[in-house]
C-alpha cells in the first residue's frame, strides 16, 4: 500500500514538474512563465518530498522533510512573485515561439 502510494506520488510529481518545464519553454512572456513555475513546480516538488517521506524507515526523520516542504512551498512562489514585480516595470518582450496568443491591437 505504501509502495503504491509512493509510486503515485512520484509519477504525479514528475508529471507536474514536466508541465512546469513545458510551460517555461512554450509560454509567451515572463509573467506567464513565472505563473507556470510558481504553481506547477511547487506542487510537483511537494509530491516528490511526500514520496520520500513515505519511503523512510525512521519516521523521526520526517521533521526534516517537513522543514524542506515548508521551505520549498514558501520560497518558490515568493521568488516568482519577485520576478513578476521586476518584470512589471519594463516593456514586455514577447517571444512568440509557437504559442498562439491573441494580441488585440
Amino acid at each position: 500500500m505504501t509502495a503504491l502510494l509512493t509510486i503515485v506520488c512520484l509519477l504525479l510529481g514528475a508529471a507536474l514538474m514536466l508541465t512546469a518545464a513545458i510551460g517555461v519553454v512554450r509560454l509567451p512572456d515572463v509573467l506567464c512563465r513565472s505563473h507556470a513555475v510558481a504553481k506547477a513546480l511547487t506542487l510537483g516538488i511537494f509530491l516528490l518530498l511526500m514520496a520520500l517521506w513515505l519511503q523512510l524507515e525512521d519516521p523521526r526523520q520526517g521533521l526534516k522533510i517537513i522543514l524542506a516542504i515548508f521551505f520549498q512551498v514558501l520560497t518558490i512562489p515568493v521568488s516568482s512573485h519577485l520576478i513578476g514585480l521586476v518584470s512589471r516595470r519594463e516593456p514586455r518582450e514577447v517571444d512568440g515561439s509557437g504559442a498562439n496568443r491573441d494580441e488585440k491591437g
Partner: protein
Amino acid sequence: MIAAVIQIVFFLLFVCVLLGLYRLARGPSVLDRVLAFDLITTCVVGMIILLSIQWQTTLFLELILVFALLGFMTTVAFVIHLRQTRQRPSPPAGAQTSQTEV
C-alpha cells in the same frame, strides 16, 4: 517496481533540466534566465530526492535544504541586483522617496 518508477521519473526530471537549459540559452530577457535557473535548481532537488529514495538513506536531507535555500537566495540576489542596476542610470527627480517604494 519502485526501481523502475524511479528510472522513469529520473528520465522525466532530466527532460525538465534540458527544457530549462533551452530557455536559459534562448531567453529574451534576464528574468527568463533567472526563472529557468530556478526551474533547474528545483529539478536537481527532485533528483536528490529520487537518489535518497533509491538508496534508502537519510543522509541527503540536509543537502535538499541547502539546495532549496541556495536557489531562493540566488533568485533574490539577482532580483535585487537587477532592480539596483536599473534604477541607477536614470534616477527620477525624487530619488530618495522613489527608491523606498516597491
